[in-house]
Structures are given as structure tokens and as C-alpha cells.
């Protein structure tokens, strides 16, 4: 079973649950920017949640199914057609051999995920099928999709497609979003911190994602954050959601393709439950950070996971 890329869209890559376990060798995790929508795209077609999907960015692709297969699209809202038929988001559809899925105009959110029953089948590299654009491996030859690419689809596993609509359990950003974060002063990670004054400015500023924001990180424009101390920092691990402040004072929110380590001062870390929403922001969108403590961060994540388990356990047929 194969999918042919008729039009790649702006930036379409193969992503699975991410390349975990090799960060000590400097290998980035990559993986989906919005892991929740990625998982739902899998679940609705009957896959385990971490199969490889296609991550679509801002402008969607056109994909021809060279065999009959089941697919679903979740995440950012797009108008889509399968040949002449409108396609609903979050629902499993059967594509006939030779039919073409075309993405049209976009509504809320920045990234959508195309799941297919069986998952996109590219070779495993260090245990993952995720595309690492910076290192140039994983996914399809370590790069974004191009016109004429052919993607293999794996054998069907797991369950039958669900007869339900699975949409992200959070509001998709329409022009911007409030994101919860833990102040670096409150966590146990190493490295110098930005002081209280910097933090006050940081939480009252409405930042805008600069045009050069990408899967590695979002460059945030706004009132520069005043760093108390500009001594060089020893590099240490940089989790997804870390907000770093380089000497320019313009924060960088580290995203899925971040480097494994970094040496800039850190001001806050986005809580795991809000990473999917952050992953739905695009260039020009606004972002405001709201501080939250560790306990509420864990509680928010558990609540989100429980919601996901409820929706993914719903019966195959209603």
C-alpha cells in the first residue's frame, strides 16, 4: 500500500512518538509538535497511538492513495476533499484506490496530522520513524516531503476504525493562546535563572511568534526580557517547552526538533499538558505565559491523559 505525494504543501513530515533514548548521544527527539492530535489521528483509524503520521504545517498537501485504505485527519482545522467529497476532520474515511485527498483553506490551529490504518512505514532509525530535519535522517530520507514522493503504509494492526469523531480536547488557537509554564526559579533544573523582575516582565508581555519560528523553536518578539546575569552558562539538557533567553532578551520556546542541550539562561518551562496547544501556534500568532506550580502541572497532564483514554476507549461502533 502506497501514498503518492501530488503536492507536498508547505512543510509535511513523517512523525511518530519521537526518537527517545538517544539524547545522551546528542540525538534530538523530534516527533509531533502536537502529540495529542497525532495520537488521535492514529486511534481513530484503529492504530496504536504512536504509529507514524504525516504532520502538515499551515498549508496542506495533496495525497493520492495508490491502494484502498482508511485515513483520518486531526489537529488544525482544514477544509479537505477526497476527490469531490468533503472530508470531515477527526473521522475515519475509506479512500478508494486512485482517490486524492486535497487540503484546502485552514481554520484554527497550525498543524494537522494524517493518520492511515497501519501507519506510514519508513525505516526505523535509532528506534523511531520521526523525521529529524536538522540531522537529516529519519522519516523519508531525513527531509520534508516533495512532489512525487511515495510513502509505504504498514500492515493494518490493532482495531477497526472508530465510528466516532476525535477532536483535540483543547481549544485550537485562533491567532494566539495562553500557555501555562513553570518558572525556572521553581524547578530543579541546572543553570542560572532569570530573576524576579525578568519573570514579572515575561508574564505580562504578549509575545508574537517571529516568522523564523519553526519545529526547533519559536522566536518570541515583545518587550525584551532583562537578564540579571550574562555570564556564560554550562550547557545542560533542554526539554520540550523550555523557554530560553539569549543575550538579546528575546525568548526562544524550544519545540519538538530542539537540540538535546543548550547553554542559554532559562526563564520557564511550558507544562506538558499545554505543549500540544503550543504546537498549534504558527508565525504571527500571539502567546502569553501564565505561571503555574508543579503540582497543578502534573494534575493537568493526568486530567488530559484521562480524557484521552476515555475518548480512545469509546466503542468501535456506536
Amino acid at each position, binding site marked *: 500500500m502506497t501514498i503518492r505525494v501530488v503536492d507536498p504543501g508547505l512543510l509535511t513530515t513523517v512523525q511518530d512518538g519521537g526518537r527517545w533514548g538517544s*539524547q545522551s548521544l*546528542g540525538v534530538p527527539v523530534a516527533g509531533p509538535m502536537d502529540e495529542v492530535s497525532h495520537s488521535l489521528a492514529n486511534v481513530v483509524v484503529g492504530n496504536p497511538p504512536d504509529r507514524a503520521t504525516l504532520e502538515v504545517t499551515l498549508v496542506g498537501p495533496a495525497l493520492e492513495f495508490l491502494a484502498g485504505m482508511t485515513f483520518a485527519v486531526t489537529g488544525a482545522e482544514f477544509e479537505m476533499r477526497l476527490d469531490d467529497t468533503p472530508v470531515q476532520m477527526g473521522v475515519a474515511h475509506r479512500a478508494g484506490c486512485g482517490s486524492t485527498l486535497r487540503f484546502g483553506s485552514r481554520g484554527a490551529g497550525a498543524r494537522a496530522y494524517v493518520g492511515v490504518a497501519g501507519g506510514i512505514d519508513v525505516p526505523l532509525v535509532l528506534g523511531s520513524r520521526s523525521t529529524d530535519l536538522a540531522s537529516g535522517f529519519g522519516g523519508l530520507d531525513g527531509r520534508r516531503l516533495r512532489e512525487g514522493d511515495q510513502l509505504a503504509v504498514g500492515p493494518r494492526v490493532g482495531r477497526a476504525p472508530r465510528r466516532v469523531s476525535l477532536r483535540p480536547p483543547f481549544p485550537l488557537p485562533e491567532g494566539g493562546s495562553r500557555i501555562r509554564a513553570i518558572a525556572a526559579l521553581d524547578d530543579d533544573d541546572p543553570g542560572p535563572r532569570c530573576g524576579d523582575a525578568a519573570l514579572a516582565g515575561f508574564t505580562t508581555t504578549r509575545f508574537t511568534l517571529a516568522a523564523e519560528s519553526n519545529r526547533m523553536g519559536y522566536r518570541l518578539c515583545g518587550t525584551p526580557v532583562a537578564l540579571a546575569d550574562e555570564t556564560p552558562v554550562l550547557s545542560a*539538557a533542554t526539554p520540550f517547552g523550555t523557554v530560553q533567553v539569549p543575550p538579546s532578551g528575546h525568548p526562544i520556546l524550544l519545540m519538538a526538533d530542539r*537540540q*538535546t542541550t543548550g547553554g542559554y539562561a532559562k526563564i520557564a518551562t511550558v507544562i506538558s499538558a499545554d505543549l500540544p496547544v503550543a504546537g498549534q501556534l504558527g508565525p504571527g500568532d500571539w502567546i502569553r505565559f501564565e505561571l503555574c506550580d508543579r503540582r497543578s502541572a502534573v494534575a493537568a497532564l493526568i486530567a488530559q*491523559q484521562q480524557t484521552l483514554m476515555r475518548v480512545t476507549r469509546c466503542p468501535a461502533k456506536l
Partner: protein
Amino acid sequence: MTVSFPARIDPDISARVVALAETVRAAGYPGVRDVVPSYHAVTVYLDPIRTDLDSLWPALEEAAGAPLESGRPQRDIVVPVVYGGDAGRDLAEVARFAGLSPDEGIRRHTQRRYRVYMLGFLAGFPYMGIVDPRIAIPRRATPRPWVVAGSVGIAGAQTGIYPTTAPGGWHLIGRATVEPFDPRRDPPCPWRPGDVVTFESVRAGAGR
């Protein structure tokens, strides 16, 4: 979750970091997704749903405080390098900075044993030290848009090897004749944190 030691580039602290990272990895705690050692810290990535946070943190603290086993095996790795020329375009500048001849600069780089403190920046990039203070030239004021894979560079007390062609700000003194990183190889790179690397000056065309 991160366990931090004093923030210094120090072989003894690094030895603790590497030992702790190995202990955590070997323990196979449920929910642990990745373990990342750096100069002075070990960061443990975990799934808070699957991990018993109340028991993991004390276990990490205990492992961090445990005395180091003496006589831990240390791997020695020799990396052949073609110094100067096209591959090491900054060798003359490093020599000027040091007030030495290029040959003496090479000698000072090859005579030390470098500990691999951590990998980062690029897949397979080793942060190694400690460089002879005489040749410890700071980063370039303007990074180069492209540094060729295999390039050996100096940034202050650190020396490193670019595993892939990428932008970079380190002063380049030569090119390693080993393949620094291949994701299809197991292990993908020849070095890991805690290894000791020495450089050997070879002529162009040797190795590979």
C-alpha cells in the same frame, strides 16, 4: 527531573554524572524515557503517569550520593586528525593567538587526553576538555554558515568534532579521519560521555 552537581567543568563531577546516568539507565525505572548527562547534571525524562515520582526522586538522590566505584573501566579512543590546510583553516590563527608555531599548536592539541563530558548541539557532537590554556582560543566572533563534517574545533577550554556539516562558531584546526556519526551504525558514534579521547596527527590521505 534533574539532579545537579556544582556547576563546573570538572572531571570528578563528570565522573559522578556519568555514573549516575548509568545507574538510572540500568535500574530500568518504569516510565523513564531518556537519561541525559551534561557537564554537571543528569536530566531524567519521564512519563509522570507511569512513574512513581515519590519513590524515584529519593532513589535518584541516593544514587547521586553513593560513593563512586573505584577502577571503573574507562574507554580510550584515538582519533586521527589531518591538521591545518583546507580542513583546519584556523590553525594559523590559533597559532598566532598562542604565540606559537602551527606545529607547536598541533603538538599542544595532541599531547592532552580529553574527557568526553557530554554530547549535544548536533547528533554525535562531543564536548571535550580540557584544552591547553595556551591554545584555548574563544569562539569566533561570527559563526561560519557551514562547517564540514569531521572538522575538529576549539572553543575556549573545549574541543569538539563536528559530526555533520552544519553552521558553527568554533575555530577549526583539522579534520578527523573517522566517521563521527552514522545513525545506522550501532553504536552510532565512537564516543560517549566518560570516554577519553586523544588526537593523533596524520597526513592527508591516511585512514578512512
